[in-house]
């Protein structure tokens, strides 16, 4: 069942009071392909305290579809109000990946992670994700990987790489959306275990933002 995914919050704002329920139906296809709605995932959007009439749901989208990081995400809403229900038009977005690189000059860190989220308009609503960045020169890293079961025992391999160390990881989202991220620096597998530690580099608080 293993499928690397990322979390993406989708939103809906009630245009008028009295809406009982809103569903989102989501399906992904290769770029340009027609959606097969029988393969769709369905989520009920639940009311949010962040704004009046706002409903949200976090969907899961693949990090790769048929081996590609870029693909189409189709969705529509199904809305029930009293004894009436209606379906929105189908929306199609292009999901794109962007590489984030982190240059680490000291060689002190064995692993670098990127904690990131796609803002659906309100930054606080970004659903959290994590990517393990791959170190240039080490052939076994995957810049698209999610959190591993435990940090890989690669201390010696990392130390053997020339400085600076450049770590690269991918983030995803709909084209045009903002991704906010911070960097997770981890040192594990040290000869002296008490030297193992981790810090979060958040650019002094706000993190970094890129537009997809």
């Amino acid at each position, binding site marked *: 069942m*293993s499928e690397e995914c990322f979390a993406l919050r989708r939103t809906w704002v009630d245009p008028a009071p009295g809406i009982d329920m809103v569903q989102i*139906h989501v399906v992904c296809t290769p770029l340009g392909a027609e959606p097969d709605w029988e393969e769709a995932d369905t989520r009920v959007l639940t009311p949010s305290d962040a704004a009046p009439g706002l409903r949200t749901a976090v969907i899961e989208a693949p990090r790769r579809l048929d081996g590609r990081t870029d693909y189409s995400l189709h969705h529509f809403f199904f809305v029930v109000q009293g004894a009436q229900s209606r379906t929105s038009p189908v929306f199609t977005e292009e999901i794109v990946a962007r590489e984030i690189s982190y240059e680490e000059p000291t060689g002190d860190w064995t692993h670098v992670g990127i904690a990131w989220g796609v803002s659906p308009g309100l930054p606080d609503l970004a659903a959290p994700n*994590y990517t393990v960045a791959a170190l240039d020169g080490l052939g076994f890293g995957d810049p698209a990987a999610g959190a591993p079961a435990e940090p890989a025992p690669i201390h010696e391999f990392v130390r053997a790489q020339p400085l600076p160390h450049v770590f690269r990881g991918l983030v995803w989202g709909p084209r045009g959306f903002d991704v906010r991220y911070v960097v997770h620096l981890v040192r594990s597998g040290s000869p002296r275990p008490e030297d193992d530690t981790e810090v979060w580099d958040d650019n002094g608080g706000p993190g970094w933002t890129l537009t997809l």
Partner: protein
Amino acid sequence: MTWYYPKGWTDQEAGVEQVVIHYACTPPEQVPDWSWEHESRVLEDRGGFPRTRLKVLRMPREVWDMENGWSTPEYRFHYWFEVFQNGHRWTTDLFSEDIVYRDLEYVDHHGWTTNVCIYWSVGDWSAPVYSPMEDPRFPGDSDYLATKYYAYQDKERFHHDKYWMLQHMERPHRWQSRMYGPRGATLVQQFHVGHMWPPEEKDEFWLGPDGRAPANGSHWVHTL
């Protein structure tokens, strides 16, 4: 269609920076190979004091049993949490739960109903699921299967044709579908019932043990 399972975490101390849930599903009596069949998700920080975190997991309806060569709707869910706190990471014990299902039937003696779903959620209403129901006698190759309803463009045609197909089926109509959850958990549940044809009689409502009710209102509680 899948179903959704909310997994929460409450910080017991200050200094927690991130919590990740690692999980895998296996057939009953089997254990996962964590290096192969493993998923991880970051829990959403929901604030508060103590701080709570939540991730709604998308769960499979069945798991492939490689040893026996079949899919099983009841399976084992294994998980643990990885906690980043005060510059270090630590992990919880490994937990395992039996995922089981409960089949529901909605009996319509009069042939009035044209659409009905189970509306249900594990625990509370934080992650509700719609499970479209069907009478098993309804043709499996029909364009008017409940699972095709949402994406069917011409809803009036769907309503009309399904209504007449149902009228030709002997009563009572026995609509069926399935809910899932961890053994011992509670599910909250309503039906969402539709009478979509003829147009002048169109009616749609949630049904609980006290009759018609608002969504998430009067509901049944099941223990798995």
